[in-house]
């Protein structure tokens, strides 16, 4: 199936729901790794919006990416509760371990605030991380 057909399929699956844009954007990013200009234009056409409106939504939310990044991603929580449990001290070692190979991003709270420092890789969560554990996690990502 061509990219255009897949995109049309995603849009068709959600169009007709109330407020279909966010579900479409999530599905497009899951399928293609990002929501690029062409996808924005196609979604805008299907939903009878301007591309500016769709782009405004894509650029508003932290989750949406406008270009794909094939690297594995490790999200490290650096919110208050994890900081209180020592998350900041792990950052230099985590950055060194990630280098250019792993995309180390900041997440603000995973809802595991009593057992931090915490990280997320895909849908897997990791708690009570120390430097060794986090470096190992990044190495395996």
């Amino acid at each position: 199936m061509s990219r255009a057909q897949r995109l049309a399929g995603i849009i068709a699956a959600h169009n007709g729901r109330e407020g279909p844009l966010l579900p479409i954007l999530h599905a497009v990013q899951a399928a293609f790794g990002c929501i690029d200009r062409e996808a924005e234009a196609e979604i805008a056409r299907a939903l009878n919006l301007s591309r500016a409106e769709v782009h405004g939504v894509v650029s508003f939310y932290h989750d949406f990416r406008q270009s794909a990044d094939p690297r594995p991603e490790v999200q490290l929580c650096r919110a208050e509760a994890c900081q209180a449990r020592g998350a900041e001290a792990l950052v230099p070692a985590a950055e060194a371990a990630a280098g250019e190979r792993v995309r180390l991003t900041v997440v603000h709270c995973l809802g595991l605030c009593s057992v931090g420092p915490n990280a997320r890789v895909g849908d897997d969560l990791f708690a009570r991380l120390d430097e060794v554990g986090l470096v190992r996690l990044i190495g395996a990502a």
Partner: protein
Amino acid sequence: MTTVRIADDALALACGADAVASAFAQAGCMVERVSSWGMHWLEPLVEIDGIGWGPVSVADVPKILPVSRNDGEDLCIGPIAAHPFIARQQRLTFKRAGKTRPLSLDDYEATGGWAGLHRARTLSPAQVIAEVTGSGLRGRGGAGFPTGRKWQTVAEAANPRKYVVCNADEGDSGTFADRMLMEGDPYALIEGMAITAHAVSAQQGYIYVRSEYPHAVARLEAAIALSAAIVAPFRLEVRVGAGAYVCGEETSLLNSLEGRRGEVRAKPPLPAVAGLFGCPTAINNVLTLTALPHILAEGGAEEYARLGIDRSRGTKPIQLAGNIRCGGLFETAFGITLRELVYDIGGGTATGRPVKAVQVGGPLGAYIHPDRFDLPFDYEAFTAADALIGHGGIVVFDDSADMSRQARLAMQFCAAESCGKCTPCRIGAVRGVELIDRIRAGEDAPAIARSRREDLVLLEDLCETMRSGSLCALGGFAPFPVLSALRHWPEDFA
């Protein structure tokens, strides 16, 4: 065969519960995956015949089995229900925590599930609203608005198309009660929403969950499918956020549900009058909605109203987080003091160092000095102390915390998460970070025609502008952590 109960919520999984569960299964046990008791320092917590062991690793499994050998003594906490952390609580919203399999309709019914909904449906919408008003229930998301009054407005609105929206965008650091309920007792939330729909005559409901909670999303979708016939004709759908903290603000959340940028709307009109797609909308937090099945059950409203103090009635699920020895979920009647929560129940810091501060109510909540730990958990008492209860999260910091750094973090967070609609928040937060940086740099700050004293005055002035001039709580409350840090720990700004 030995039956072993192990939680399967996101926190237990993050602590390695799946591997422990597999090890017990391989050892020939029957493993039941249940909700979490909320004693997080003990997760993965293993329960066999009411006795608990925790925190358990795979290597501990042979020590615990067979139970008669009594080898895992160092991990054994005795009967879980009698543990002081549990025994001291008054669990109404979390009454099933640790006790039921989250997706089991049999477990839910056997523990009183759907009784509130069935009874509500025998009452008129006006009677339901009167009971909720009588219970004294106020919005548990943070603002503390009386739930019954909000519903009254929705019920009276003329538009026949109405919505129930659950705000499950639990973004505050230090909070996890919504997550625990969605993952551990999803039918209670669904029942609460169905009761709300009956009270305000809504046909459709949405649960807006943050994308950081994939397990909660999956659990809710499964629960909605399994219980669709029970709550029909009311229909429910989960919608997933996209990483914007501000979408926890109700009007921003509604915009996001509609597929727009998550910008805050000016009020009025209130969402109760013109909310989702311009229709009257009852929008409530997970904890508010999940309190309803109890309130609508026979005698529930009176029991709820009897608990608590002053105008804060009922129970509040409090979340003990951060640098605390015994962190987890503690539901109790309003009125408990911070001192009891932090020391008696939480056991002080996890690091064993002295407590320096607690932040209550998320990243926009005030930092509270141990000198003021006699403050009772009560909406009005906190407001009077320039603090907020918010969603009930308490984050403990030990004496290694640098409070000027924490103040900067609040402004930086506000700058990063501002929706951009109003100037005090969008510009103010950026200027706040710059000012705090100058103050922190002290004599190393680039020389401009402004003294340190003037910088401090300017920071207070900026905070006042943000507090009174912002459209929503993001810019409006960001000054709380900043000013409280400045007032109570001035030495950290020196």
